[in-house]
C-alpha cells in the first residue's frame, strides 16, 4: 500500500530562458503539442515561434499581420500540420500554417467587432475547430470544412461587454472511460467554457449543430479573466478553473454525466487581479498567474483542500542547477 504522505515541495527549475526580442509586453507564450516549439505574442503586434529543444532558442518565424496587440496564441493538434491561431486587439483572428518550412497566414477571420481576447482549439477528435472570445461579447466557432473553407458559427451576446476566455472540455464519450479505438466516430458531446466581463462563467453545449448555453456559473464578483477546463484523466468528474479580476480563483466540479450540477470551491483569494489559470497535462496541478504578477502552483490534497505548493521563480535566484545536458545556448 502506498503511504499518503504530504507531498514535498515541488522542484521548479528554469531550464531555458528565451529572450523573445519582443519590443513590448508579452501577452501569451504557449508550447506546441510536443513541447519543442514556443509561440509568443506581444503588444508589438508580432507572433514569434522559437525552436526551444534542448534548452536552445532558434527563432523559426516572426509572424506579422496583426495591427494591434496580440493577446493569445493556440497550437492546433499536430495531426493537422503545424498550425497556430492568434487573436488580437485589431479584432482579427489569424490562422498561421507552416508550409514547406515557411509560416504563412492561411486564414484570417474578421467577424468580430472588438478585440478578440481568447482563442482555443477544440479537442482534435472533433476536427479543426477554433473558439474565439471577443470584447464585443460574442464567441465565434471556426470549423475547417475540409475544402479550404472555414465555417463560422457565432454566439452573439455570450457575455455582455466582453468575453475574456474560452476553454474546451476534453473529448469524452459519455459513459465511456476508455477511448474507443474502433473506426466508428464516437458520439462526442462538444462543450466549452467561457468567462466574461459579466462576471460569469458559462458552459456551452452543441445540440443539433447549434451552440446553446448549458450552464451559467455565478460566483465571481468581477470580470472573469480566464477559464481552464481540466484535461480528462479518465474520471467522470469534470473540472473547470476560473479566475477573476476580484482576485478569486474557483474550482468548479461536476460529477454527474448530464453536466447540470456544478459546484464551486474557492481555491484562493488573491490581493490582485488573477489573469490566467493553466492545468498540468495530468490535471493535478494548477498554475495561477496574477495576484501581483506572481505565478503559483496549486494542488488538491487528499482531503479536497487546495494548497499552494510553490511559487515559481523567474530565473532570478532560488533556482536549482540546470539538468545535465541541457544548456542554454544563449
Amino acid at each position, binding site marked *: 500500500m502506498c503511504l499518503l504522505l504530504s507531498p514535498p515541495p515541488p522542484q*521548479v527549475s528554469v531550464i531555458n*530562458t528565451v529572450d523573445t526580442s519582443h519590443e513590448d509586453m508579452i501577452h501569451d*507564450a504557449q508550447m506546441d503539442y510536443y513541447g519543442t516549439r514556443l509561440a509568443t505574442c506581444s503588444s508589438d503586434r*508580432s507572433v514569434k515561434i522559437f525552436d526551444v529543444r534542448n534548452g536552445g532558442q532558434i527563432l523559426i518565424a516572426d509572424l506579422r499581420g496583426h495591427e494591434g496587440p496580440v493577446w493569445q496564441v493556440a497550437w492546433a493538434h499536430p495531426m493537422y500540420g503545424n498550425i497556430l491561431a492568434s487573436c488580437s486587439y485589431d479584432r482579427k483572428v489569424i490562422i498561421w500554417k507552416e508550409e514547406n518550412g515557411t509560416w504563412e497566414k492561411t486564414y484570417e477571420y474578421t467577424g468580430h467587432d472588438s478585440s478578440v481576447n481568447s482563442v482555443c482549439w477544440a479537442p482534435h477528435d472533433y476536427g479543426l475547430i477554433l473558439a474565439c472570445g471577443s*470584447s464585443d461579447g460574442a464567441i465565434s466557432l471556426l470549423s475547417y470544412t*475540409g475544402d479550404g473553407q472555414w465555417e463560422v458559427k457565432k454566439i452573439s451576446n455570450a457575455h455582455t461587454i466582453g468575453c475574456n476566455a474560452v476553454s474546451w472540455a476534453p473529448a469524452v464519450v459519455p459513459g465511456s472511460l476508455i477511448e474507443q479505438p474502433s473506426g466508428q466516430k464516437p458520439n462526442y458531446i462538444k462543450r466549452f467554457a467561457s468567462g466574461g466581463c459579466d462576471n460569469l462563467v458559462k458552459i456551452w453545449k452543441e445540440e443539433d449543430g447549434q451552440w446553446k448555453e448549458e450552464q451559467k456559473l455565478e460566483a465571481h464578483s468581477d470580470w472573469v479573466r480566464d477559464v481552464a477546463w481540466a484535461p480528462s484523466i479518465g474520471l467522470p468528474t469534470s473540472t473547470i478553473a476560473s479566475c477573476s479580476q476580484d482576485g478569486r480563483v474557483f474550482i468548479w466540479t461536476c460529477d454527474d454525466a448530464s453536466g447540470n450540477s456544478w459546484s464551486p470551491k474557492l481555491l484562493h483569494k488573491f490581493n490582485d487581479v488573477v489573469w490566467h489559470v493553466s492545468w498540468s497535462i495530468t490535471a493535478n496541478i494548477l498554475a495561477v498567474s496574477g495576484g501581483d504578477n506572481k505565478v503559483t502552483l496549486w494542488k488538491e490534497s487528499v482531503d479536497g483542500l487546495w494548497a499552494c505548493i510553490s511559487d515559481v521563480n523567474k530565473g532570478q535566484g532560488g533556482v536549482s542547477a540546470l539538468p545535465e545536458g541541457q544548456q542554454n545556448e544563449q
Partner: protein
Amino acid sequence: MKLKEVDRTAMQAWSPAQQHPIYLATGTSAQQLDATFSTSASLEIFELDLSDPSLNMKSCATFSSSHRYHKLIWGPHSMTSGERVSGVLIAGGENGNVILYDPAKIIAGDAEVIIAQKDKHTGPVRALDVNMFQTNLVASGANESEIYIWDLNNFATPMTPGVKTQPLEDISCIAWNRQVQHILASASPSGRATVWDLRKNEPIIKVSDHNNRMHCSGLAWHPDVATQMVLASEDDRLPVIQMWDLRFASSPLRVLESHTRGILAIAWSMADSELLLSCGKDAKILCSSPNTGEVLYELPTNTQWCFDIQWCPRNPAVLSAASFDGRISIYSIMGGSTDGLRQKQVDQLSSSFGNLDPFGTGQPLPPLQLPQQTVPQSVVLPLKKPPKWIRRPVGASFSFGGKLVTFENAKSQQQPGIQQQQQQEQQRHHVYVSQVVTEKEFLARSNQLQEAVQSEGFVSYCQTKIDTAQADFEKNVWAFLKVNFEEDSRVKYLELLGYRKDDLRKKVNVPGSWACVKCFPDGCIHRVQPKMLTMPRMVEVLLYLWAKDHKQETEDLGSAKKTFNISVSGDVDGLITQALLTGNFESAVDLCLHDNRMADAIILAISGGQELLSRTQEKYFAKMQSKITRLITAVVTKNWKEIVQSCDLQNWREALAAVLTYARPDEFAALCDLLGNRLESEGDSLLQTQACLCYICAGNVEKLVACWTKAQDGNSPLSLQDLIEKVVILRKAVQLSQTVDPNVVGALLAEKMSQYANLLAAQGSIAAALTFLPTNTNQPNIMLLRDRLCRARGELPVGQEALKAPYERQPVPKGRAGPVAEQMQGPQAPAQQYYQQVRIAPTVTTWSNKTPTALPSHPPAGCPSDTQGDNPPPPGFIMPGAVNPNMPPQQVTPSNYSMYSQGGTRAAYPQTYQATQQYSCGTGGPALYQPQQPVVVPASASYTNPAPNTTPPYLPSAPAHSLPSPLYPGQPQPSPTSLNPVCSFPLPLGASFQHGRLGPPATSVAYALPTGPTGTLPATSDLPASQRTGPQNGWNDPPALNRAAKKKKVPDNFLPPVPITSPIMNPLADPQSQVQQPLAPAAPMGAPSFQPPQLPAGPPVLTEGAPGAPIGNAIQHVQALPTEKITKKPIPEEHLILKTTFEALIQRCLLSASDPQTKRKLDDANKRLEFLYDKLREQTLSPTIISGLHNIVKSIETRNYQEGLNIHTHIVSTSNFSETSAFMPVLKVVLTQANKLGV
C-alpha cells in the same frame, strides 16, 4: 456601445470599486427641469446587471427627497469596517447643504436614510470630492470661494484648506490629488485653479491661462502623475482641455482641442491614465489620451448635450453619461454590436403602437422605408488602442513533459531616473521554461525499477521490496513475484502458501501411530501435502480418513488382528470370504461396498485390477459424502477444475496449492486464472486482493492489472507505481519462464502503461517514459504517446515504431487556394482513422516499398474500408491538398496507405535534410524536404535574419522609428506569396533606411518607444500607457514629463525642469540653474544615437495651443511678476525686421481671417512671438537660427509661405530644441495660416 439607459434628468454617482454588485445612484438634477416641470426630487439606486442583455437598468430603490442635487458622489467610507456596507452617498444640494446618505438603507427601503446633513455653505454645492487615501475626508465647494473639508467621522465642523481666494468666486470643481493625500485643487468658472496644501493650510500654486478665456467646468488630477492635472473649459470660444504640469505652471503642457463647443464635464479613468472622457455642447462624448491629445474614441451619441459623465470605478470599461434630454446612458468603450439597442427601440414602438395596426384602423401599416442614415451603424468599434486593463502582464501555461512556460512583464517602474531609463532599455522580454517536478518519490522508485530491469536484478529487487513492504499482503505479493525468478517455483509457491513437504512428512510418518488423524481435526485437508500422495500413500491416507469416520470400528479391527479367523459363515463376512476364496474380486468388492466396508472394498479392488479399482472408486465417491470427498475425487480423477470452481473460497489457499501441485503446465495458468476470477468476483474485499496472487502464479499480467486497479486507488502516482512495479516484474518473469508472447499487451495494461508513461513525462522523465511504454503494440494511445515522447525529446520516432507514426499529418491547404480539381476530390476521399495515412503522393510508393512493415499497423478492422470511399470523412480530417491529383482515391490500393514514415524519409534523404525534418514533417509532398530557408520577417525590412540558427539581432533603424505609425494604418498586407524569403531577405538595411518613409512603416515600430533612440519617435500615442506613466511614489518624484516625449525634437542637451521640491512654494531663485540640473524623467534622455540627420523632415505636429519649450524663461512662478512688466531692452536694429514682418503678417492674417477660432490663434501667436523678440533683445539666438529667420522673412516678403515653412522645418530640425521651441511652433501657425488665407 450603449449597454443600459435610464430616463432621468439626474446627477449620477457610481458605487465605489469595492461594492459588488455595481450600483448607480441618481439624484434629481437641480439645474434641470424635466419635461414634466415637476419640482419633486428623488434619489434612486439602480443595479448594473450585465447578465441581463436588455437596456433596462434594474431599479433597486427610490427615495423621495426634499432636495435637488448639484453634485452626487459615492464614497467607500466605513465599508471595510462593515459599519456602512455600501459606503456613503454624499450629495451637494441647492441650499448650501451637504447631505450624507446610507445607500444600504436606501436599498433596504428604510425611512431614515440620512446619516447627517449640514447647510454650512451659503450657496449651491456644486463641487464634491472624496479623498482616496482617507475616505472619511470630503471636500466641498460652493459660491463665494467657499471650500470646506468634512470629516465624515466628525461631521459637525468642517475645516477650510486655507484663506479664501480673492476675489470671491464660485467654486465649480474640486478634486483631491490622486497621489498625494494632502493636496487639493479647486477651480472656478473664471478659469483659475488653485492648488492647496492642507498641511500648510494655504494655497500653494495657482494655475491660470493668460488668455483668461477658460471657464472651468472640469478639473481632474492625473491618476498617476502627482503634478499633472487637466482643466476643461465650458467657453465656446475656447472649448479646450488644458493639461498642466505644476512644475511649469506658466502655460499648459498640452491643449486638447477636440471639441468644437464648450466642454461640460470630464472624467479621467483611474484604471488607465490614457483615457480622459469629455462631453460638450457639441453633443460629443470623446475619450482622449491627455498624454498625447489623440482622440481614441468617440461614443456614438444622439444630438443631446451631456452635462455629467462618470467612469464606473469597478468595471473600467463602463461609463455613464447624463444628458439634457433626460436620460442617463451607460456605455462600454469596448465596442460591440448595438443590435440589442435597436431591438429595444423596436420593441418599445411595437408595445406602444401594437403590432402593425397602431391606430386600430384595420389596415396594417405599410412597411416603412427607412432612409439609410436613420439606421445607425450597428457596429461600434472599440477604443483605437487597448486600455491598460486588458493587457495581460503575466502568464504561466503547462506544456508536455511537465514544463511550465512563464512570462511576466515588470510592472511599470515607479522610480524615475536616468538609471531607470537604461533599465527599461535593457528590459528584455523573456519567456522562461521551467521543469516542474512534484513527485520525487515516484521518480525515485521509477528509477529503481528501471535499474532493476536493466541490470536484471529481479530477485534482489523483489527481496528489497519484501524487506521494505509495510503490509503483509504487499510482502506476500512480492514474495510470489520473487518466486518467479527462482528454481522449482511451484514448490516455493507452496511454501509461500504454508505447505512445506518436510513438515507433513514428519507428521505423517510417525510410525505405528494414528496420531496423524489429529492433523485433520475436522476432516478438512488443512495440511495435506498433495505431492506426497502417490497412489499407495493415497490409500494410506484414505484409510486414515475413513478410520477417522469409523474410529470405533477401526479400533475393533485393530484388536481383531490379534487372531486370524477366516469366517465362512452366511453373514457378509462369510460371503466375502467365499468370494475371495473363489477369486471373485468383483463380488467381494460389491459385498464390501454393500456392507459399507469401504476400505475393504478398495483394498480388494486394487488386487482386482485397474478396471475394478476405478469402478470401486466411483462407487465409493458416490456413496461417501464427507467434507473431503470432492478433494479426493479431484485428486483421484485429476479433475482440478472442479476443485477450483467449487471450493469454498476461504480455502482458496488450499485450492491454489492443489493446483500448484497437480495441474499440468498447459492447464495451470487457466486454473489459477479461474481461481483468481472467483476470488475477484467475491464480495469480500480481502479475498479480492488475494486474486492478485493467483494471477501472479498464472503470470497473467492483464488480469493482475485489472484486479489491482479495482482494489486500489489508482489515481495517485505512487499507487500507480505500486502496480507498475509488479506488472513490470511479472512481465519479466513471464518472459523468462513461459512461452506466452510477452509483447502482447492488453487494452487495460496499455492504458495503465501509457498512464504511467504520461506521469513520468509529466515529471519531465521523458526517456524513462519511453522505456516503459510497451514496444510492440498497436494500441493507439500508446502509439500516440510514443510519437509524442520521441518528438518531445527532439527525435523522430525511430526504428519499427517510426513506421507507425500514430496519426496522419493533415495539412490544411492555404485558405487562398481556389477550389481546384484535386481539392474537390477531398470529400470523396476515404474515411480515415486519424492515424492513418491518406497521403498517396507518388513518393508514398517509395516509402511503402521501403517500409512494408507499415502495413500491419493498419487501423483495426472495425474502421471503414480504406478504399470504399462511401464514408465521408469527418470535416477537417482529410485535407484535400494531400490527395494526389494524379491518382483518384478510389484506385488507391491499401498498400499505398502506409503510415506516414519519418523513417522512410530519413532513408530517402539521409544527410542533407535531417536538420530540417523537424520543421517540415507533415507538410506533405516532396517539397516538404527543402532545406530550411532563413526565416525572414515579412513586411519588416528592419529585421534581418541571416540564418535560422541565430537569433536575429534587432537593428533599430532610425528612419523606421521616426515614421508615424498610425494604429491601424491600413498598410497593405504582405501577400502570402511575397513571404518568399528570397524576395524579402535581400532587402538591405540601407534600403529600408532610405525608402522607409515611402513604404509602410515597419509594424514593429509602434511600441518601440521605451527602448532605443526614442528621441526621434513621434509615435507617442502608441506608447503603452503603462510605460508612459506609472503610479507615483510621492509628490516629489514625478515620472517622465510626457511633454518632452511628445516633441519630436528633443536635443541632446535638453534638460527638463526639476520636479517640484518640497516645499512647493520655495521661490525659484535661479530658474536657469534648476534647468541645468540633470534630471531623469524625460523619456528620451541620453539616447546616444540621437543625431540631427536622423530627425524626420516632416513638420512637427504640435497642437497650436501648446506652448513653447519648457525652458527657463517659460517657467514662471505663479506669484512672479509677469515678464512683460520688466523693462525690456530694444531689439537690435538688424533684427527689427523680423518683428515688423511677423507682426505685419499676423495683422494681414487677422484681417482676412473670418472665424473667431483662427483669430484667437493668431492673437495668441502674436503674444507668443514675444518670446522670440525677447530672445532677439537678449541676443541669445544662434546665428544659424537668426539667419534662418531672416530667410523666412524674405519668403514672407515674396509671399512664398511654403518656402517659409520649409525653412522653418529646416530650422526646427537642425536647431536646439530649447532654443526655438518657445516661438517656432507659433511661427509655424502663422505661416500656415498665411499660406491658407493667401494674404
